[in-house]
C-alpha cells in the first residue's frame, strides 16, 4: 500500500456544466438535418437522372456490397480489402433490395441513401457543436448550419454516395464528443467521440493521423489541469476503438489475403495506382519530395473554404499559454490531422489529384470561423444593437462567401478535379461528359453482349470491370475477383471459364488482374486466347475466348 492513499468519495451532484452535456439537443438541429437529407436525396436524383453523373468510387463501393450478397460465392470477404469497408457494409441492407429495385446497385442508389443519411448526420453534429460547445446565438447557429449544409461540395457529396461525406460526419461526431468531454468531463461523450473516430476509420484511412492529432490535443488541453493518469486514461479510451478497428482490419487482411498490409501495398492499393502515373499532375509533381511544395499544395486547398486561413491563425493564438482553450486546440489539431495523410502522400508523390481529399477544410473552416466568432462575442455583446445586427449580417455573409469560394475554387484547374466540371454542368443543367464522372460511359455494348450470351462464363477483374459486372443481367455468369476460385481460374482457365474480359492496359488498368497475369493478352499475343469481340470506348474492353490449349 502506498504511503498515503486517499479514498475518494464522489459526493457532489454534478455542476450545471455537466448537465448541459446530458440535456437533449434542440430539435432545430434535427429539423435542419432532416431537411438536408431531403435536399441531398433530391440532388442525387437530379445528378443521376438529369445530368447522368455517377461517382465511380461511390458506385464501386455499392458494387462491393452487391458481390457480398449476390456473387457466385456470397461472403462478407467480398467487400474487399483495399478500401475501408464501412460504406459498403452500411449499404448492404439497401443493396439487398436489388432483386426488386435493381437501380439500388446499377445506379448506385444505395450509396446515395447512405451518403445523404451521413451527410445529414454531419449537419446535425455541426449544429450540436455550434450550439453546445461554441455557445453561439441560436439564430447564428441555424444560419451557419444551413450555409454549411448547402455548400456546393457538401451537397454534391451528400448526394453522390462517396465516403468523403461519411468521414466528415465522423469527424464532426468526434469533435462533438471530444469537446463535450473536455468542457464538461462527460465520459459518455468521450466514448461517443471514440466510436465516431473508429467509425471514421471504417470510412477513410485519414482517421489514423486525425485521431493521433486529437490525442495530442487531449494531452495539450488537459496538461497541467488534470493528472497525467487522467489524460493518458482519456487518450486510451479515446483511441482504443480505432486501434481495435485497425487491428481487426490488419488481422482480416492477414487472415484472408495472407498479407496484413494488403490494403496498403497490394496491386490495387492507392500506392500501386499512383505508381502507374495515372493521377500525376504538374502540381503534384512539383510537390513530390519537396516539403514546402507539399505543404503549399495542401494549404492551397484551404481555398475550398477561404475564411479558414484567418480563422486558423486566430485559433492558433488560443492553443498555448494562458489563453489556452480546448476548443481551439481540438479544432486546430483536428484540421491538421485531417490533412496529414494527404500531406505525406503528396510529399511521397502518391496522392491522387482529387479535390475531395481536401473537403474537410470546409467543415473545419466553418468550425474555426465559428470559434473565432464565439471568442469575439463577449466583446461585441457590449456594443449597441445596431452594430451587433450589422456585424451578425457580416458574419453570415462571411460564411456565405466561403461557400461561394468553394464553387470558385473548384473551377480552378489545379483544385477542381473532378468536381469543378460536375458543379458547372449541374448548374448549367447539362449532361456530364467523359468517363471520370460517368464510369458507365461506353460499357453498354459489353453489357449487351454478356446479356446476349448468358451461358458464357466470363472472368473479369472487378477492380476495373465493376461497371459492367453490376449492370449485366446474370451476375453469376461472371467469375469475379472476390470469388474464392478467381485466382485459380485466372491461371488455369481451361474448362472453367469461357472468356476473359480485358481492359486496355493503360493507366490504372495496368493493375487489372488479367493484365498482370497475362500482360500480352489484350494485344492478342497469348496463344490460348482468341479475340471474340472488341468494345471501343474509354476502357477499350476486349473479350477473349479461352481455347482448349489454355493451361
Amino acid at each position, binding site marked *: *500500500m*502506498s*504511503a*498515503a*492513499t*486517499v*479514498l*475518494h*468519495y*464522489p*459526493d*457532489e*451532484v*454534478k455542476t450545471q456544466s*455537466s448537465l448541459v452535456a*446530458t440535456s437533449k439537443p434542440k430539435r432545430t438541429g434535427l429539423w435542419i438535418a432532416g431537411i438536408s437529407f431531403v435536399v441531398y436525396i433530391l440532388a442525387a436524383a437530379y445528378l443521376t437522372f438529369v445530368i447522368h453523373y455517377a461517382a465511380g468510387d461511390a458506385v464501386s463501393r455499392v458494387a462491393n456490397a452487391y458481390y457480398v450478397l449476390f456473387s457466385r460465392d456470397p*461472403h*462478407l470477404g467480398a467487400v474487399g480489402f483495399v478500401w475501408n469497408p464501412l460504406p459498403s457494409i452500411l449499404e448492404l441492407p439497401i443493396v439487398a433490395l436489388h432483386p426488386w429495385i435493381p437501380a439500388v446497385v446499377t445506379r448506385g442508389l444505395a450509396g446515395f441513401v447512405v451518403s445523404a443519411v451521413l451527410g445529414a448526420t454531419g449537419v446535425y453534429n455541426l449544429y450540436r457543436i455550434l450550439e453546445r460547445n461554441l455557445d453561439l446565438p441560436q439564430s447564428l447557429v441555424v444560419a451557419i448550419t444551413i450555409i454549411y449544409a448547402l455548400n456546393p461540395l457538401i451537397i454534391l457529396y451528400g448526394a453522390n454516395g462517396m465516403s468523403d461525406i461519411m468521414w466528415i460526419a465522423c469527424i464532426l461526431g468526434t469533435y462533438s464528443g471530444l469537446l463535450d468531454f473536455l468542457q464538461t468531463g*462527460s*465520459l*459518455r461523450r*468521450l*466514448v461517443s467521440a471514440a466510436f465516431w473516430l473508429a467509425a471514421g476509420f471504417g470510412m477513410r484511412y485519414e482517421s489514423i493521423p486525425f485521431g493521433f492529432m486529437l490525442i495530442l490535443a487531449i494531452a495539450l488541453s488537459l496538461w497541467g489541469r488534470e*493528472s497525467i*493518469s*487522467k489524460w*493518458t*486514461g*482519456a487518450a*486510451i*479510451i479515446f483511441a*482504443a*476503438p480505432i486501434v*481495435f478497428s485497425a487491428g*481487426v482490419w490488419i*488481422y482480416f487482411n492477414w487472415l484472408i489475403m495472407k498479407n496484413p498490409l494488403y490494403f496498403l501495398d497490394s496491386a490495387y492499393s492507392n500506392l500501386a495506382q499512383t505508381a502507374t502515373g495515372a493521377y500525376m499532375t504538374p502540381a503534384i509533381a512539383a510537390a513530390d519530395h519537396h516539403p514546402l511544395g507539399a505543404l503549399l499544395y495542401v494549404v492551397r486547398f484551404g481555398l475550398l473554404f477561404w475564411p479558414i486561413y484567418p480563422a486558423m491563425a486566430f485559433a492558433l493564438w488560443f492553443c498555448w499559454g494562458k489563453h489556452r482553450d480546448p476548443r481551439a486546440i481540438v479544432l486546430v489539431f483536428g484540421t491538421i490531422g485531417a490533412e496529414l495523410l494527404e500531406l505525406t502522400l503528396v510529399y511521397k508523390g502518391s496522392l491522387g489529384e482529387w479535390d475531395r481529399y481536401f473537403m474537410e477544410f470546409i467543415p473545419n473552416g466553418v468550425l474555426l470561423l465559428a470559434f473565432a466568432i464565439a471568442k469575439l462575442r463577449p466583446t461585441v455583446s457590449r456594443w449597441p444593437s445596431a452594430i451587433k445586427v450589422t456585424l451578425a449580417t457580416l458574419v453570415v455573409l462571411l460564411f456565405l462567401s466561403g461557400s461561394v469560394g468553394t464553387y470558385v475554387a473548384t473551377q480552378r484547374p489545379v483544385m477542381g478535379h473532378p468536381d469543378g466540371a460536375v458543379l458547372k454542368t449541374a448548374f448549367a443543367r447539362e449532361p456530364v461528359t467523359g468517363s471520370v464522372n460517368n464510369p458507365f460511359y461506353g460499357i453498354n455494348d459489353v453489357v449487351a453482349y454478356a446479356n446476349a450470351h448468358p451461358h458464357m462464363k466470363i472472368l473479369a477483374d472487378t477492380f476495373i470491370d465493376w461497371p459492367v459486372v453490376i449492370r449485366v443481367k446474370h451476375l453469376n455468369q461472371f467469375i469475379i475477383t472476390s470469388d474464392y476460385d478467381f485466382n485459380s481460374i485466372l491461371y488455369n482457365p481451361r474448362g472453367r471459364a469461357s472468356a476473359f474480359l480485358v481492359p486496355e492496359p493503360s493507366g490504372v488498368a495496368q493493375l487489372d488482374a488479367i493484365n498482370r497475369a497475362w500482360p500480352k493478352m489484350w494485344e492478342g499475343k497469348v496463344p490460348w486466347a482468341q479475340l471474340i469481340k472488341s468494345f471501343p470506348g474509354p476502357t477499350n474492353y476486349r473479350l477473349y475466348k479461352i481455347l482448349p490449349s489454355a493451361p
Partner: protein
Amino acid sequence: MSEISQRWDATPWITLISYVSGSKPLIETVDRSAAFAVSREDARTHGLLPFAWDSGNLCVAVAEPPSLQARLLLDRIGPVKWYRTTAIDLVLAQREIYGDLSDRPAPFGELARQRGLSQEALDELLRMQQNQGGLLGSLATAHQHLTSWDVAEILSAQTGIPTQNLLQDSPAASPELLNVWHLLTEKEWRDYEMVPVAVGPDTITVALTNPFDTPGRRKLSLVAKTRVKAVLTGHRDILARLDQQYRANNLVLSRTLLLHRRPDDSATQTLTKSQKWAGVALVVALIAALIFDRDVALSVVSSLFVLIYALLVVHRLWIIRKGTLTTNELRFAREEVENLSDSDLPIYTILIPARDEANVLNVLTEALSRLDYPKDRLDVKLLLEEDDVETIAAARRAKLPSFMEITIVPPEEPRTKPKALNFGLQRARGEFVTIYDAEDIPEPSQLKKALLAFRQSDDTLACVQAKLSYFNIEQNLLTRWFTAEYSVWFNLLLPSLHAASLPIPLGGTSNHFRTEVLRNIGAWDPYNVTEDADLGIRLNKSGYRTAVMDSYTYEEANSEFVNWVRQRSRWIKGYLQTWLVHMRHPVQLHRQLGARGFWGFQLAILGTPIMFILNPLYWLITSLWFMTNWGLIPHLFPPGIYYLGMLNLLAGNFVFAYLNAVGAAKDGHWSLVPYAILTPLYWTMMSLASWKALLQLMTRPSHWEKTHHGLTDWNPVTAADHRESAEISA
C-alpha cells in the same frame, strides 16, 4: 344529576397506602414504575398519581374528578382507568414516590457526574442531545462515557425503581415465565427493551431500561390481562436475556425462514426433480441428435452458443451506453445530507458478519465510529461464529463501543454468511438495516444518503445499493483488474439496470434495506452462496425496487491468485445456483418479472457465468483451427454463424475490455485504464474460476469458499478525520 357526576360516583375507590391482608406480605398498591408514566410536576399540578398498569390501562388515582387538561395529558399515553382516593392518600403517595415538594429532583447529568462523568463530557453530551435528540443515557453509553449498568443505576436513583442485574441474577425458567415470553413477539421485546423476570398470581414483573417508556407495559398488560410491574436493568442485561431466550429460535429461523415462507426460492436443493428430468431429457436429446447427424447437431449447438454470446456482447454495449449517463443513479448534494435533522433519524441496524478476521477489527471500529449518524441510534451487530475463538477474544479485548454488539452465531450448518446475517436480522432493532463486511470502510454519510433515498421514494423502494470500490487498488496487477471490474459492476452495470428498472443482483455489502420488507420476503437464503444476488432477484419478484446510490464503501481487493479464484468461483457458483433456483418455474418467473425483467435476469445472472464458461471452449476451438485446420471445426459454424462467432471473438473481447476501461474511468480510477485494456488476461482467470464453480455446483452446491481478508497490511490503516474522505496513511 349530571353525567359527569354519575360517572364520578361510579368510579371505584382505592387506597394508595400499603397494607397487610391476612397472612399475605405487605401489599403495595402503588407501582413506582407506573408512577413515572407522567412527570412529577404534572402529577402534582393535576392532582393525580398513576399507580399501576393493568390490562392495557394505566391506573390513575385522583381525589377529585380529573380536569380536562389531566384527561388530555393521559390520553396521550393511552387508555386510562380512573380510581378515586382520598386527598391524604394521594398527597402521601405522591410524597412517597416523587419526594417532598421542596425536593429538587437530581437531574441525570448530576447523578452521572457523581459516577465519574467529567463535566466536559457532560457538556458535550448535552450539546449533542440538543442537536440530535435522544436520551442522555443512550448518548452517554454510545460514546462510552457510562456503561449501560451505570445508566440503570442512575435511573434507579432518580426514580427509586429497584434494579435487577440479569447478567448475575438471571431469573429461573418456569412454565409461567415461558408463557409470558410468548405473549409478545421477539421483535416487540427487543423494541421495548424489556424482558419478563417474574410472574406472580396477579402481577407480571418485567425488567426494562427506560422507566419513562410506556407502550411496552401497556401492551403486555393488555395481552396478559393482568398487572405489570417493572424493575430497571441495563441494556446489556436485556440483550443477554433475550439471547438466552431466543437463541435456539433465532438459529432455526436463520436456517429455515425462507424455506418456510417461500420454499421454491430456497437453494436447499440445487435442482428440483423436474429440473433434473429436464436436464436428463436435454442430454438424451443431444446424444440422439449426435448419433443421428453429428455435424448438424454440433452445428446447431454451436450456433446457439454463438447467438447467446452475441446477445451478451450487445447487452454489454447497451450497458456502456446507458451506464455512462450520470443520471441513472441516486445522487444527493452535501446540503441535502446536512439538512437532515438528526433528531428525526430512526434506529439503523448494521450487520457485520466476520470470521477469522481479528486483524481488521480496529479498522472496522474506526470506520463505524466515523459514520455520520447519531451513535445512540446505531444498532451494530458484529456476527461472530461461536467457534471462531480468536476473533471473539479479539473483539472482547478491543472494548468495542456500546453501539456495537457482539452476537455469537451458533456453529451449525450451513456455515454461511447469509445464515449469520439472518441470525443477526432476528435481533435487529432498526427500521433500516444494512450489511458491511468486516474490512469495509463506508463513506461517513452513507447511512444518511440511504435514508434520503428511502424518504424520497415510495414504499416500493426496498433496497438501496451503495457502490463498492477498493482501497488497495495499486497493490498489484490483480487488484487493479479487480478494481476495474468492480467499477464496471457498480458504475455501469448496476446503474444501467436500475435506470431500466431491471432486477439488480445486489453486491455483497453496503446494501440498505427496509427491515420489515427484508423480513417479509424471507431475508437471505442461507443455502445460496451468492445470497446477495439472489436477494436482489427476490425483491424484484416481490414487486420491490432496488436503487443504486452514489455513495462508496471501500473494501480490500483480493490480492492473491488462489484466494481470488476461491472467491470468484463462489460468486459464479452462486450465480448459477440463483439461476437454477429462480428458473424452477420459468413461466411464473416471467409473470413476476415481466418480459424485460425476465430477459434482464437471464443476461445478468446466467449471462455472466456462461460467458466465462464458454470462453475457453471457443479459445480452444480457434487455437485448434489455426494449429490443425481440423475439418470438423468448419462444420460447427454455418456461414452466418461463422461471422457472428468471429465478431464475438474480436468485438466481444474488445467490448468487454473497453467496458472495464470506461468503468474504471467513470469511477475516477483513470490510472487503471491502461491495465483495464489488458483484461483479456484476467478473463482466463475468470474462466478457470467459472469451471471450478461449475464442477463445485455439482459436488458441493452450498459450500462457502471463505475469502481471506487482511492480506494487505492492516496495521498502518487508520481513517483520517475528514468529513467525506477517509485517508489511509502509513
